[in-house]
């Protein structure tokens, strides 16, 4: 077990180190902050794209056309079945007559050309809106597949191509985030490892003496690991601060409405989980960086 005096000793050493080589620590924290800032930036873009998609979702509708030969009773049960899909937020039944009236209205003064045609030539349809959670490309396709398998439903239309493209953009952002993030993570680990190596070398004689008088390994290692942790947390804090600054200054320059794209109010800063993820990553980077370096340079002990 560690004695209180030893814990106090470790804390004093960390504080002393931050005082003595302040700039080295700041530089390392800064490096981590840059990594986390870039990673966090991608997270921010991704979250907002997802947010936009959900906002647009109310305009994304599935049109399921009923076959004209279906008897009225079967239509009832079909509607009941479709409405029980868990993904569906609401659906509106458009009868043949409504479809016909709508069509006539859209033709306006030229509706005369329809004279003599029967309302029966247009199929009845269902206009379906999905719940927010299911407004991704995959979930949409899944619902469409099930609709197509229903007896009594003919054509099913939805903005497939558009959804696909948007999905690809989102996927691209996610990939860039993890690949670039991974590279930066590795590079940052190296930089931290190097800082710790320098710190170890700078205190080499001190470490040697400590070992000769019987200090435990834990006591010798702990200050370095603790420094790494603190640096990581500082770096994460710095990154979040910069992201927030960037977010605020960017959004304040946007017009209140971006036309059909979005309302400014729809743009959101990072969710709590993402903030936690950033802080956690900073913590892990700092700790791992010093542990790896210690393993390499204190091997003999």
């Amino acid at each position, binding site marked *: 077990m560690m004695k209180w005096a030893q814990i106090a*000793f470790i804390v004093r050493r960390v504080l002393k180190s931050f005082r003595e080589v302040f700039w080295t620590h700041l530089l390392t924290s800064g490096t981590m902050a840059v990594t986390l800032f870039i990673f966090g930036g991608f997270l921010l873009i991704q979250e907002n794209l997802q947010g936009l998609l959900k906002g647009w979702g109310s305009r994304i509708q599935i049109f399921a056309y009923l076959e004209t030969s279906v008897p009225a009773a079967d239509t009832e049960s079909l509607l009941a079945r479709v409405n029980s899909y868990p993904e569906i937020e609401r659906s509106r039944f458009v009868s043949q007559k409504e479809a016909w009236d709508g069509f006539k209205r859209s033709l306006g003064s030229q509706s005369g050309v329809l004279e003599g045609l029967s309302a029966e030539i247009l199929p009845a349809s269902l206009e379906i809106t999905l719940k927010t959670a299911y407004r991704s490309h995959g979930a949409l396709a899944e619902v469409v597949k099930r609709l197509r398998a229903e007896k009594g439903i003919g054509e099913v239309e939805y903005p497939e191509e558009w959804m696909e493209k948007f999905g690809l953009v989102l996927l691209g952002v996610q990939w860039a985030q993890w690949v670039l993030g991974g590279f930066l993570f590795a590079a940052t680990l190296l930089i931290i490892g190097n800082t710790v190596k320098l710190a170890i070398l700078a205190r080499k004689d*001190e470490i040697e003496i400590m070992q*000769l008088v019987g200090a435990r390994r834990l006591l010798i290692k702990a200050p370095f690991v603790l420094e790494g942790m603190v640096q990581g947390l500082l770096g994460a804090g710095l990154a979040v601060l910069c992201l927030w600054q960037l977010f605020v200054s960017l959004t304040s320059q946007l017009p209140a409405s971006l036309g059909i794209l979005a309302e400014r109010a729809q743009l959101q800063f990072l969710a709590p989980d993402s903030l936690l993820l950033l802080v956690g990553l900073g913590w892990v980077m700092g700790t791992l960086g010093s542990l790896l370096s210690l393993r390499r340079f204190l091997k003999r002990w």
Partner: protein
Amino acid sequence: MVHLFTVSKIYPPSYPALTDIQLDIEKGEFVFLSGPSGAGKTTLLKLLFREEEATDGQVVVNGRNVARLSNKGVARLRQEIGLVFQDFRLLARLTALDNVALAAEVVGMARRESRRKAFHLLRELGLKDRHNAKPPALSGGEQQRVAIARALVNDPLLVLADEPTGNLDPEMADETMRLFAQMHQRGTTVVVATHNTGLLERFHHRVVLLQQGRVAGGRKECPAGV
């Protein structure tokens, strides 16, 4: 206190620094480890505080078989041993007082208590007015006394000194030896490695003579004044 059973040490790849050493040092003894340069004195001391491990044989220090110690065990062993070196090994950035107090702190003594004890030791060793000086500002003899204070701060059962007088003028050397004699009188077991034969003539403790890695003779403690 110290028992070596047929101990050999071969430095890689195949340099035999110690061969077949048989040695017993009882609690409270004062022993000179002497012999020409390269005889293996430093190597033998290193085996005792587990800086090096024996290639063959058993090393027992204060009832512990040092070959079997874990990292923690090595740390605990070293807490019972005070070490003094020819080159003092003080930390140049710390004051004399902090150099001594550090050794107590890292094994768990509270900071205030460590500093108080360090101060008392330094005063006893005649460094009362120099405790705030850093090693580069101290003479060789003063530095060695700081190092001795550091070796004593954890109340060691065993003090190992490797050429403690090697960098000191004869007067300072004798003064330093008298400090070791004092510890010995208080019951501490002391082992001093030296190739300075003059010391052996002036201080009449037991001598173990090493030559080319083997025990090649020695003498029992002789009564003072011979």
